[in-house]
């Protein structure tokens, strides 16, 4: 099956359809939240949360397989989000201490998985996901977690915009800063949990950060950012899954769907960057 056929017919297969639905919902949530990550400059915190979630994923997986991953990740995410929000609010955390703590968390996760011999291939699945072999239960929980994250941000949309633009004036207007920040950080953590399940813990950042960064290259208007970020996510999910499928079938190699989706995100970003440079050159 060639790539163009894969773009349409491949999704008739149940496992491909399931993967696509998961990715589409995830893309909407990650698109909206990714714009706020970009506006607030929270890429490093997101990276940190991703690492912090890993031991939770690992412990959940070791204790009860794929169904335990979500619970473990949620517990780790909750703890890490609260600690990081409080630390950043009280200004006790430097980037260096954050990096040290979170790398430690990641190492602990790797050791937990490696130490349990009974789960062959577990580490690889946690790191790179198993998008094409998600079960119905996993698909539903991923979708639900993504939607909760999306609703959290939509309910606090105005104060998130205000906080991102002008933190002091938003506090003056009566929006408590710690509440605004905690809600966004929880939403980021939830998307990380959902995306870890789908594309794997190492590739989460592609889904979470690239659409927001890309939207800044393309649009100068607030509304435009969200439209571009969500559209880019939807497009990258579709093309990436089809590409992964096509390579696996034709090449006879087992390519993780998460990796091709992540690479498609990067490719879209590169295209946007090139177009912007050319347009700027044309204007100059």
């Amino acid at each position, binding site marked *: 099956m060639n790539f163009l056929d894969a773009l349409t017919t491949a999704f008739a297969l149940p496992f491909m359809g399931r993967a696509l639905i998961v990715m589409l919902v995830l893309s909407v949530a990650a698109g909206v939240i990714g714009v706020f990550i970009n*506006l607030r400059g929270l890429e490093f915190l997101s990276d940190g949360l991703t690492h912090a979630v890993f031991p939770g994923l690992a412990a959940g997986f070791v204790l009860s397989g794929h169904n335990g991953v979500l619970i473990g990740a949620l517990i780790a995410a909750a703890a890490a989000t609260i600690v990081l929000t409080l630390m950043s609010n009280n200004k006790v955390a430097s980037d260096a201490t954050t990096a040290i703590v979170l790398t430690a968390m990641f190492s602990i996760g790797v050791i937990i998985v490696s130490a349990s011999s009974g789960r062959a291939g577990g580490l690889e699945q946690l790191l790179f996901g198993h998008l094409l072999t998600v079960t119905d239960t996993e698909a539903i929980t991923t979708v639900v977690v993504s939607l909760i994250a999306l609703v959290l941000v939509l*309910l606090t949309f*105005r*104060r998130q*915009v*205000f906080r*991102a*633009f*002008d933190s*002091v*004036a*938003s*506090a*003056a*207007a*009566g*929006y408590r800063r710690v509440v605004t920040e905690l809600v966004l950080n929880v939403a980021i953590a939830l998307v990380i949990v959902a995306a870890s399940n789908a594309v794997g813990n190492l590739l989460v950042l592609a889904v979470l950060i690239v659409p927001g960064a890309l939207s*800044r290259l393309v*649009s*100068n*208007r*607030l509304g*435009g*950012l969200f439209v571009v970020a969500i559209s880019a996510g939807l497009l990258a999910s579709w093309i990436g899954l089809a590409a992964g499928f096509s390579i696996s079938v034709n090449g006879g190699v087992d390519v993780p769907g998460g990796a091709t989706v992540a690479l498609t995100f990067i490719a879209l970003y590169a295209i946007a960057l090139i177009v912007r440079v050319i347009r700027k050159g044309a204007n100059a």
Partner: protein
Amino acid sequence: MRNISTPALAIRGGALSYGTTTALTDIDITVMPGEAMALIGPNGSGKSTLLKGVLGLIPLVEGTMTFGESAGADTGIGYLPQTEHIDPEFPVSLKQVVMMGRYRKLGLFTFPGKADRHAVKKAIADVGLTNVANKRFGSLSGGQQQRGFLARALASEPGLLLLDEPFNGLDQPNRDALLQTIRELKAAGVGIIVTTHDLDLAREVCDTVLFVNGRQIAFGPKDDVLTLANLQEVFSDFQVEIDEHTVVVPGHEGH
């Protein structure tokens, strides 16, 4: 109608601190609706600390602070920052920035309505920026951005308005326009706190004066408080020059 018998802001025996460092003590002030208070002191004397305390950004470690029903933490305080460190690339238009002043009045599930759009339009017109309303905020000049922030504060229809050095860097026409705006706000019953180095200005639009220098030096009606003795105490480290009309504190922008 605003209730004009209760103060827009009252602080009794207030002390503010950053962590363990006490920054400002002995604050005893009342700002009535329709009254403007000039907040005067040398750099580092605690002026910004007091504003941050009123905004709830740093806690009151001693004393009490009460707000009138149309001002305070729940309804929001109008705030015009001195120099705002905003991201010049942030993708919002002037109109969107001014609409932020209306956010607190909007319900969770309600979109801005006619009244909100009208208030935003009027606030932008009041500061004379109608022709750049749709431009990206970061692309405006410094003076335009400051007037944009004033429009945002106006659009929020605050009961209490804090202006941090609003006259710095303004040319004469803009200065006159801002003075006129302050007079109109007072007439509408807004309580105002304005920090300034310009004593002329304090005389011109303010009703009361608060002198601070790490603690409250004096507070009261401007005619009682704007005395040479108080000025010497507040600016003891500075050379105060007095001519017929103006008192200029060297090192700061005077008019």
